[in-house]
């Protein structure tokens, strides 16, 4: 450990500020609160701060960040923005360092977020011990008052002097700006220990439920009345998520400049407490009630992220509770309330805590990382209007390579200026082109409906887990499609027809609202010519003047009309959200085993790679873990068929 006397420390900070290669930020006062902001002088730096309004996540995942710059006067022109110069952040408390390490695990997991990695690699962290403890902080309870890594330098304000601990070589190089650096004495070490112990002690707020029991506590109390009681007071303002150092959800929107010729795709902070977070273009809201949103936040922290990435996603900074106006966001109060009302024995989950991270940003190299949000150019080969609301597209990637999708996967279709939308691939695997059927439902799909052969679109994907066509071989298959569900289902169904000898009996039931809404009419007509498949069609109603030879009624009514062996048939269901509850009930009456039912679900899928948070269904990311699920695996998911 090294020591700088206060005056020398100030000179060090001023030298950093004066270094033109660095953007030096630190903690400053804002009214009676504190913020991380650019420093003009060492005198502004407040190492005695308790907590900042926003955590330093804003430097790695900014509130507004341009991720693509596009030129709409060209058929397809997009580039990545320039990134700012190297930054050093002075005064990051240990709990925030723990949160940044969690963020590393989140954004550098299987799909590496290039923009995040670039900022992360470009930022030096000077950690700092907590001198003043915020009244709502509980990092003592969460054991995040001390960190062993995650910083380049670590300092402690010891009154007349500041101690330095070196974390990385790059941090050590920063010390070239320090004059009169001397070795510490045992007294300095003792003083630092006393400061730490004091802060950690003050940041104990009597959390009865230790982090390693949160998972079980939340799981067992999902239906507890506590959620409703608390959320009745919730304003759903989103503050708790916005100020949280471990909330990472984001939205993406296109902004067009006044010239109407260029624009930017912008990533902005979003939050699961906000109603529009789960709204999809057709209007469904997947977490309409505030209680569901309120509960989701706690469950994500204590259950869903621990399941996915290992750590408990709370570091005890206390920002949520200090900034929640109705005072219902405090994890200590919530967890204690659940703990006290819990009649069950709560199981411990090893030594899992906020530090349980397995990823180190140091081990990642920017070289070769791709930009997650950069679409690839593709060309529309064929565009045909198939119903009043739907249009069919055949698309080829401009690199002339096959999309390489499995049946049931989706792509993010992108039009610069209108954004992106998740669209199911409707064609079977193989071939150099792929097919989409797009319903007019929002800005982007309205625009797509105006496009023609030769026009360019952007494509990201394919994404998600599709149907496992291999595993279905030799099985009897019953396909049930409701409405637009035929679109993703067709990718599997046509694959099965193309490889008919590989599969057992094949039956298809297809229902839509009215005859005019039926998709793939030619193909449906061709089903009737085949002796190796059985098919039945239905419409909810047939208005006067339309011609219809099939059944009338919901698609579930067709189930008793076909012969199939419930125990030895795989049922593949794809339809709108309301469809599943009813059809699954009909199937269960026939005692079809859960594991023989396969579903494809719809949610708001924005990023496609399990980062933006919108499609989350309890702990499951529909975009990544689905959209195709085996019913047995998903049926106990409380948010799946709500």
């Amino acid at each position, binding site marked *: 450990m090294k020591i700088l006397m206060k005056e020398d420390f100030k000179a060090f900070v001023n030298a950093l500020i004066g270094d033109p290669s660095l953007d030096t930020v630190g903690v400053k006062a*804002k*009214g*009676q*609160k504190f*913020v991380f902001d650019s420093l003009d002088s060492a005198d502004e730096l407040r190492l005695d701060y308790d907590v900042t*309004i*926003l955590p330093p996540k*804003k430097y790695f995942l900014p*509130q*507004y960040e341009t991720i693509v710059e596009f030129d709409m006067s060209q058929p397809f022109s997009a580039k990545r923005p320039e990134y700012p110069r190297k930054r050093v952040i002075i005064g990051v408390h240990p709990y925030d360092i723990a949160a940044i390490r969690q963020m590393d695990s989140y954004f550098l997991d299987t799909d590496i977020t290039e923009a995040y990695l670039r900022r992360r690699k470009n930022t030096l962290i000077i950690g700092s011990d907590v001198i003043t403890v915020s009244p709502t902080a509980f990092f003592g309870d969460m054991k995040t008052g001390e960190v062993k890594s995650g910083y380049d330098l670590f300092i402690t304000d010891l009154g007349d002097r500041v101690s330095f601990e070196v974390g990385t070589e790059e941090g050590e190089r920063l010390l070239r700006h320090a004059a009169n650096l001397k070795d510490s004495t045992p007294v300095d070490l003792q003083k630092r220990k006393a400061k730490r112990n004091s802060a950690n002690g003050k940041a104990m707020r009597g959390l009865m439920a230790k982090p390693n029991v949160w998972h079980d506590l939340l799981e067992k109390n999902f239906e507890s009345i506590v959620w409703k009681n608390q959320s*009745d*007071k*919730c*304003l*759903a*303002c*989103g*503050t708790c998520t*916005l*100020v949280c150092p471990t909330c990472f959800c984001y939205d993406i*929107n296109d*902004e*067009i*400049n*006044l*010239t*109407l010729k260029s624009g930017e795709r912008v990533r*902005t*902070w979003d*939050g699961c407490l*906000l*109603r*529009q977070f789960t709204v999809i273009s057709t209007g469904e809201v997947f977490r309409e009630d*505030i209680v569901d949103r309120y509960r989701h936040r706690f469950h994500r922290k204590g259950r869903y992220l621990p399941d996915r990435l290992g750590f408990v996603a709370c570091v005890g900074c206390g920002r949520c509770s200090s*900034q929640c*106006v*109705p005072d219902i966001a405090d994890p200590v109060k919530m967890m204690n309330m659940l703990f006290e009302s819990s009649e069950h024995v709560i199981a411990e989950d090893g030594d899992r805590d906020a530090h349980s991270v397995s990823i180190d940003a140091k081990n990642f190299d920017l070289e070769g990382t791709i930009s997650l949000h950069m679409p690839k150019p593709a060309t529309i080969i064929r565009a045909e209007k198939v119903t009043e609301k739907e249009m069919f597209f055949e698309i080829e990637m401009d690199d002339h390579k096959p999309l390489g999708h499995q049946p049931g996967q989706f792509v993010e279709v992108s039009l610069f*200026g*209108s954004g992106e939308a998740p669209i199911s691939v409707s064609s079977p695997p193989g071939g150099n082109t792929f097919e989409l059927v797009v319903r007019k439902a*929002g*800005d982007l799909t*309205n*625009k797509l409906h105006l496009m023609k052969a030769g026009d360019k679109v952007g494509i990201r994907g394919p994404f998600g887990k599709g149907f496992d066509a291999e595993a279905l071989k030799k099985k009897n298959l019953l396909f049930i499609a409701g409405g637009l569900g035929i679109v993703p289902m067709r990718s599997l169904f046509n694959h099965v027809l193309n490889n008919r000898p590989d599969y057992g009996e094949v039956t298809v039931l297809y229902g839509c609202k009215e005859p005019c809404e039926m998709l793939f009419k030619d193909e449906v007509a061709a089903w009737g010519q085949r002796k190796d498949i059985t098919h039945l069609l239905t419409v909810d109603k047939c208005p006067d003047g339309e011609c219809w030879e099939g059944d009338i009624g919901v698609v579930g009514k067709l189930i008793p009309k076909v012969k199939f062996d419930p125990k030895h048939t795989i049922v593949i269901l794809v339809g709108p959200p309301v469809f599943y509850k009813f059809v699954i009930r009909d199937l269960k009456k026939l005692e079809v085993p859960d594991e023989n039912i396969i579903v494809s679900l719809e949610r708001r899928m924005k990023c496609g790679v399990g980062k933006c948070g919108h499609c989350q269904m309890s702990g499951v990311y529909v975009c990544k873990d689905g959209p195709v699920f085996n019913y047995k695996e998903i049926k106990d998911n409380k948010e799946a068929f709500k």
Partner: protein
Amino acid sequence: MKPRVAFFDFASCEGCQLSVANLEESLVDVLKLIDIVAFREVMKEHSDQYDIAIVEGSITRPMDEERLKKIRANANILIALGACAHLGGVQRMANQWTPEENKKEVYGIANPADIADSNRFFEKPRQKALDEVVKVDYTIPGCPINKEEFAKVLIALLTGRKPPIPDYPVCVECKKKENVCMFTIGKFCMGPLARAGCGAPCPTAGNECEACRGYVDHPHEKAQTDVLEKYGLTVDDIMRRKTMFTYRYVEKPKDGA
């Protein structure tokens, strides 16, 4: 051909049109995109041939309703500009009393005949938002409007997209700006109910939000009332706060007619 745009105003301060005029250098870009055929803040020419009508102000009397209906009939797209057009403005607070009570308070009773309903300028004054009289295609909320948002709405319309008016509360933008929460300094803020899109300029400048942009689509009003009570406000205080710009949401018809 560039779309023809006309500005109109009813009961208002015209501050929202002034905000448009204050786009300044951006206005040059805007004028490359549209033809402004009527805009009395900046020009004296006027034409009744327009595609888009941008209307500021609240609707007060039958004669105003007639005029608005004519504008609606002439326009393909009608946009309500600002809090008066969107909600009825602060003047809507007058609807707490009957037209007769208001006239008596404002004009006295010296010559009742002069201000009787038979005088069409004084006929049954009642504040209404535009959408209570005609179909409104889009609304740009705020008192005054946010000029950047005005530009965004225009861009959206010209590029065939839905105008991006947010449906989340001002708290979201306020937090992103890292403001000290008004509640923590003892001020009573409508931010948790109010529709964002303004960029939270009032809390950023140290003043509480008064919800001039109206509420989000699904405000949790009960929780806000509880919070304000918790912070020491009485129901009367709360109602007063809620009637400033947002009387529309709590108004009980009192026409006195």
